[in-house]
Structures are given as C-alpha cells and as structure tokens.
C-alpha cells in the first residue's frame, strides 16, 4: 500500500517537474509573442505552426554554442552559479498545491493523494527559504566571473532581493495572521468562498506582494541586476551556452512559481466560485472516485488559468513600464513598502480583534482620499502655450 502511495506521489512529482519545465520553456515563446503583440508585431512564427517550435530551436542553439569559461574566472564557482539558480528555482514548486487530491480505491478503501509535491505545515516558510537561496546563484555566478560588470550586477541583485524580501514577508504575515497556518493548503482552503479570497480581504497586501514579487524575480521594472544599458548583461555577462540558458531558464521558472504562489495566496488557489456545488454534482452523478478525480482536474485547470494570467501579467508589465533608477528602487522598498506593510499588519490585527476581515480596505480608502485631495489642492502645472517656445 505504501508503495502505491509512493508511486502516485512520485508520478505527481514527475508531472509537476515536467510541467514546470514545459511552462518555463514556453514562457520564453510567450514572452516574445506578448512583446510582439504589445508592439503591433507578430513575433516568432517561422519554426513550426505559429512558431511553436521556437523554444526548442532556441534551446538547441544554446546547447551547441561554445561553452566558454574566462581564464581569470573561479572555475568551479563559475559552474556552480547557474546550477544553484536552476536548483533553487526548481525546488520551490514542491510545496505548491496544484489541485485538490487524486482518489483511488485499494482493498475497498478510498485513498486521497493531494496533487502536491509534498504537504508540509511550513510550506510558506519553505518557499521563502528556497527563494532567498536563489540569490546565491546570482551572487556566486557574478562574483566568480571576475568581471566588474558581473560583480556590480550580482551586488545589485543581492541588495535588491534582500531589501524586498522584508516587505514581501511582512505583507505575507497578514495572510498568516488571518489563516493561522503556514501550510499553503490551509491558506487555500481558507479562501473557499469567493469574497473571502485574500485579494478582497488584503488588497494592499496584494499590491505590495505583487510588486515585491516582480523585484524578487528580477523582472522589469526592477530588472536592475541585468540591465543591458548600464551593466552590459549584469551578472551573466561572462556566461555563454547552456550556462546562460540555465540562468535565463531559472528566471522563467521563478516567474512561474511566483505566479503560482500569488494565485495560491491571494486568488484562492484552485478554488473557483460554486466549486463545492460542482464537486457535489460530479460525485453524485459519476461516483465518488471518478467524480472526485474529474473535479480535481477542473480545479487543476482553474489553477493553471490563474497562473497563466499572472505569467501574462508579468510580461505585460515588462513591456509597459520602464526600469526604475536604483535609488528609486531602494526608496520604494525601504521607505514605502516596509512602513506600509507594517501598517497593514497593525490594521489587520485590529480587524481580527474586532472580527472584521475587511479592515485593510480602511488603508486603501484613506490613501485614495489623500491622493484625490492632494491632487485637487496641488497648484496647476504651468503649461506654456504651443508655439511660443
């Protein structure tokens, strides 16, 4: 019996691993397509129908390029860098519950195996730990390259990740306060009804978390570690071939994992409105096992729809916003997000004390009122009439 559960578990882990890699691969294609569409172009469409074989062609190109290690580089650390980046990126999807559970009968007993790499009661902590290890991949790689631009990129990445992790954690604490658990599955189950999704109870926390996730993934507008205009290529300047490919790939895996994390934390994970009704109807009409598994499949699809939306959102933002300056980035992190998230924690705590879940809307309302009044009271900008200059 244990062997069967182990097999099912192993299969689930393999499938999650494969799906993670597949989505990361096709994120590169989607990135180019989205970029093209946002710029009124068509994008890659030559390799296969609609260019669907493009990522495979790209990977093939990456593999066959010269794998170059600079003579002054620290060789082993140079190799270790991309390995670490890839390892940590792949590890973090282990605790994300992708769907409800697979049910199968054995000796007339029904067993439920959750669709999740591993269910641990410190899931959120685990993800945080692994994600903060991710910065080592960048640091080690940038430092081992023995190149000033790489080092600068690595230092930027490290300080950016560390400073945004604080705000990230603080905005997450409100959710932990409301759920009372660090387990991701418990957090998702807490959001069973639509209006109790954390996006509705924690709007401010969501905005802070989303922005910090952008910074953690080193995505535009916070892609300072690898900005071409200032640092050549940032921490991966000296990398070529599949080592570079691993770095870029790790970025897309991180994007996928953080999209999954955001949808799990704030958008109810695999829950959708009227889910319990659908599940009941399915189990009544198709039997406890088939019905349950089909319901699980629907949950799976719903969760991935949410993930895909956030991956699209990541790309959408990338091709909309310009890059922040480094001091603006740091000001935003330390002077805005950390105080705001602390305030968020306090208000949520007060709300919990009086058993009112939507307390943080207070901050949002106050901020909107302040913004509107300050705009209306601000002196009108002098606009010089056209043609006088």
């Amino acid at each position, binding site marked *: 019996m244990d062997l069967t559960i182990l097999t099912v578990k192993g299969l689930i882990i393999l499938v999650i691993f494969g799906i993670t890699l597949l989505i990361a691969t096709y994120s590169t294609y989607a990135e180019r397509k989205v970029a093209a569409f946002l*710029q*009124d172009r*068509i994008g890659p*469409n030559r390799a296969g129908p609609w260019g669907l074989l493009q990522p495979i062609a790209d990977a093939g190109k990456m593999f066959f390029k010269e794998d170059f290690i600079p003579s002054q580089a620290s060789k082993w650390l140079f190799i270790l860098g991309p390995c670490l980046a890839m390892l940590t990126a792949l590890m973090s999807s282990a605790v994300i519950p992708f769907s409800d559970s697979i049910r199968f009968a054995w000796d007339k007993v029904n067993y439920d195996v959750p669709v999740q790499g591993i269910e641990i009661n410190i899931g959120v902590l685990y993800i945080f730990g692994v994600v903060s290890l991710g910065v080592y991949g960048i640091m080690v790689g940038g430092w081992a390259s023995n190149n000033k631009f790489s080092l600068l990129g690595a230092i930027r990445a490290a300080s950016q990740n560390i400073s945004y992790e604080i705000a990230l954690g603080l905005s997450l604490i409100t959710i932990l306060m409301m759920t009372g658990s660090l387990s991701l599955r418990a957090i998702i189950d807490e959001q069973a009804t639509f209006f109790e999704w954390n996006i509705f109870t924690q709007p401010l926390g969501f905005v802070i978390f989303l922005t910090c996730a952008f910074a953690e993934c080193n995505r535009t507008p916070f892609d300072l570690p690898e900005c071409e205009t200032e640092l050549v290529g940032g921490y991966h300047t000296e990398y070529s071939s599949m080592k570079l490919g691993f770095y870029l790939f790790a970025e897309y895996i991180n994007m996928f994992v953080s999209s999954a994390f955001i949808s799990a934390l704030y958008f109810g994970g695999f829950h959708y409105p009227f889910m319990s009704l659908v599940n009941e109807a399915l189990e009544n009409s198709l039997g406890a096992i088939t019905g349950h598994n089909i319901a699980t499949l629907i949950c799976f699809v719903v969760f991935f729809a949410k993930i895909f939306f956030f991956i699209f959102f990541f790309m959408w933002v990338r091709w*909309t*916003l310009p890059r922040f300056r480094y001091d603006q980035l740091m000001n935003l992190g330390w002077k805005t997000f950390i105080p705001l998230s602390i305030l968020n924690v306090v208000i949520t705590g007060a709300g919990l004390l009086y058993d009112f879940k939507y307390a943080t809307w207070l901050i949002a309302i106050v901020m909107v009122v302040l*913004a509107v009044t300050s705009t209306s009271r601000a002196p009108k900008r002098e606009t010089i009439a056209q*043609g006088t200059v």
Partner: protein
Amino acid sequence: MQLTNRSKQVSNKEMTLAEKMYLPAVVGGLAITLRHFFRKKVTIQYPEVKRYLGPIYRGHHVLKRDEQGRERCTACGLCAVACPAEAISMVAAERKKGEENLYREEKYAAVYEINMLRCIFCGLCEEACPKQAVYLRHDRMVPVFQERDEVIYGKDRLVEKMDDRYIRVNNSEVKATPTEPSLTRAAT
C-alpha cells in the same frame, strides 16, 4: 524651431501624492499596451506577401530587346563608366553578316556581366545608357545567393526574354523622366 505640435512641455514640479503612488500611471500604461495587444498588426509576412514597391523601384537589371527581338546594347561602355561601384564589365564584338536579327546595331556586347555583390542598385547605368538598353526592373528583385560563383550575372540572366518582356507600368509621374521606356521612345 517647432517641428510638430505633439511636443509637451516638461514640468519639474514636485509630484503630488497620487503621482507618487505610481499606481494610476501604471494602470494607464497597462491600458495603453493592452489596446495595442488587440490592434491590427502592421507586419507584412515577407516571402509570402510582397509589398508593391512603386513604379520607380530599382531591382533586377534587364538588358532590353527592341520590338523585333534584337538586343539594344551596343557595348559603348557608358554604363560601366557611370557605375560608382564598378560592377559592370563587358566585351564588345562586331556584328557578323546574318546576325542582323540578333543585334540592333553593328556593335554588340559579346559578354556583359554585372557583379551583384558590388552593385548598389543606384540606377546610374540606366541613366547613362544612350540606347535605352539597361534598366532596373521595378517588379523583381535580385534573388538571395548562397555561393560566390552565383553573384556574377552574365547575359544569360540579364537579357530580356521575349515571352517575359519588361514594361514599366504607366505612371504619370514617372512618364516625365527620361529613363521611361515608353513605346514611343522605344521605337526610335
């Protein structure tokens, strides 16, 4: 000097709180890019769809024949002299008896070669030609080549085929230029 009326005066005033929050501006920007996402794409899928390049586009060279199918070129060499890239070379020969239906005048080009790697498609050969013999077609491009021995185009690829004659389309603007091979000029 003001070139367009689209320029906006930049203000260095301190930002209001709403602007410091960035969010309204971010949402506005996202709306703009999303509108572009659903807009009609401007791309022309080149090898499948070709765009009309106009009646004065300078493409593939052609050595014209006259109405009786005789080559117009007399190998005077003015095109080679005019060519800034020195892409044209030729060998002249005298017309023998019985070749009157092949060559229009007593002298003709036995060899006429254009090096397409050197050619810059400026059209000066076309302007220099006193016999209206060499033209750059507006409707056809020199194809992409992979090998170096493909790049020198001889008479076999340059002389106009009688079943595939080149007539530049009638265009009122182009008609005024002296290089237009209109029927009246071709008859001279």
